[in-house]
């Protein structure tokens, strides 16, 4: 665990065009572990709701007896939420606007999920 490395990773994620915020959350308790976000983004609320989403997705896959999800991509009309699993119970989450470079963001998140270890 290296919080300084985590902050660097989060800063790089928020550097992607259209990204509003990046967080490392604990899926077990829905709390923010580390964050870098634009002012106005309710990161604690994002962490709570993203954790609830991730937990339900994991349970859903378990019920279907398929592999546990390692990433989650939620697309909305005004933006997107991407989450990538780190070592349990950590997940790296990015909140992006409608104009975000989602392809690059996905690749970055996958790379940085490894940094959490």
């Amino acid at each position, binding site marked *: 665990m290296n919080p300084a490395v985590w902050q660097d990773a989060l800063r790089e994620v928020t550097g992607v065009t259209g990204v509003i915020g990046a967080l490392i*959350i604990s899926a077990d*308790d829905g709390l923010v572990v580390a964050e870098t976000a634009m002012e106005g983004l309710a990161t604690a609320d994002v962490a709570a709701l993203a954790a609830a989403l991730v937990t339900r997705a994991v349970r859903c896959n378990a019920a279907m007896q398929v592999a546990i999800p390692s990433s989650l991509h939620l697309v909305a009309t005004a933006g997107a939420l991407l989450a990538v699993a780190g070592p349990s119970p950590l997940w790296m989450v990015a909140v992006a606007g409608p104009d975000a470079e989602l392809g690059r963001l996905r690749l970055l998140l996958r790379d940085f999920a490894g940094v959490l270890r």
Partner: protein
Amino acid sequence: MRVLEPWVTDPLAEFLRESAARLALVMTSSGQVIAQHGFTRSVDVMSAASLGAGILATTDELARQLQASAGFGAVVHQGGRQGVWLSGFDTPRGRWIALVVFGPESSVGLVRLFFARFATQLAAAAPALVPVRDVLAEGFERELDDSLRNLFGAH
């Protein structure tokens, strides 16, 4: 769900639905129960209320001793299978306390998120207090006479 004040019902029902909490207890800061949900006979409401109020009073005093002027927002007890969220909040009826028990289907984050909404909704839903009529010295004797007459009959 059982409530003493009917206007608490809707905000509490929404909070329970959104947060997926198992048990909830709303009480005054002195431990008088206003509403409860999920408590069965095996979990004594009165004991939980008085213990919850005691814990919060202790943390408030601890905050005072530590000169934490804003106090502590909430107390969370996290167990293996369930957790307890205990928090005070201001209402037009004074400071109230909520004790929430949640399982793995919820989380501290979710309870925190929807609890903030619950407190806001409760404050908005509270009906205006009916002002207590002052008993003036000049009217006191007449009111006493009227009361005695009503009780014992006019002579």
